[in-house]
């Protein structure tokens, strides 16, 4: 599956006076818990250890937090943050864009995702190493005109084959 990067507006500052936009690898995720679902943007973030979403997503999916599955993490400072985890079903929805194959199949996978209040201001989820990068082979080509990522399901038969060759 090929996914185009998205441009988002940002404010210039003294370090980047000419900047008015940033590009991020964003996917549209269909998240399902029980009979409730929501389509939500998430950033493919290789620097994140886990997959986390704003607490509002949990509320919309009918997931009660806080729950017993909590985990401490931190961001760019040392302040502790708490995320509450739940099993979901996630589907990456191919986004229509110029020069992209309109017939790509959605990718569905189980996702153990955390929810936290401290991500509310970001307004998007983060798809990190455990649970996302652990499941797909992902390549980035971060160039202005050809920004995209490619994901290939790294299925269990391949893992079993590789283990058998050790």
């Amino acid at each position, binding site marked *: 599956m090929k996914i185009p990067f998205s441009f988002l507006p*940002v404010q210039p500052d003294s370090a980047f006076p000419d900047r008015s936009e940033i590009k991020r690898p964003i996917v549209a995720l269909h998240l399902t818990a029980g009979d409730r679902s929501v*389509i939500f943007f998430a950033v493919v973030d290789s620097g994140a250890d886990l997959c986390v979403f704003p607490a509002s997503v949990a509320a919309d999916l009918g997931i009660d937090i806080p729950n017993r599955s909590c985990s401490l993490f931190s*961001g760019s400072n040392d302040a502790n943050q708490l995320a509450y985890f739940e099993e979901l079903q996630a589907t990456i929805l191919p986004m229509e864009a110029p020069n992209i194959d309109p017939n790509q199949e959605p990718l569905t996978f189980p996702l153990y995702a955390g929810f936290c209040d401290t991500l509310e201001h970001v307004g998007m989820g983060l798809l990190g190493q455990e649970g996302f990068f652990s499941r797909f082979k992902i390549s980035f080509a971060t160039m202005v005109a050809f920004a995209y990522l490619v994901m290939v399901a790294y299925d269990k038969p391949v893992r079993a084959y590789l283990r058998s060759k050790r």
Partner: protein
Amino acid sequence: MEPIDLTGVLKDAPRGEWLALSWARDRIVAHAPSLTAAKEAAQQLGELNPIMMKVPPLHALIL
């Protein structure tokens, strides 16, 4: 491959509110202080599968 340009549709979006974007991502169908309220408002307006997000502050880069 062309990037998806969300700068136009987000330019005048209400900061701090949850947004329900059209599937084509070319317009804000509804916005509200809560995610669920924005989603339900969009669905009542006929956008059955809105894409939900919140506009981050302009300084909010992710590290």
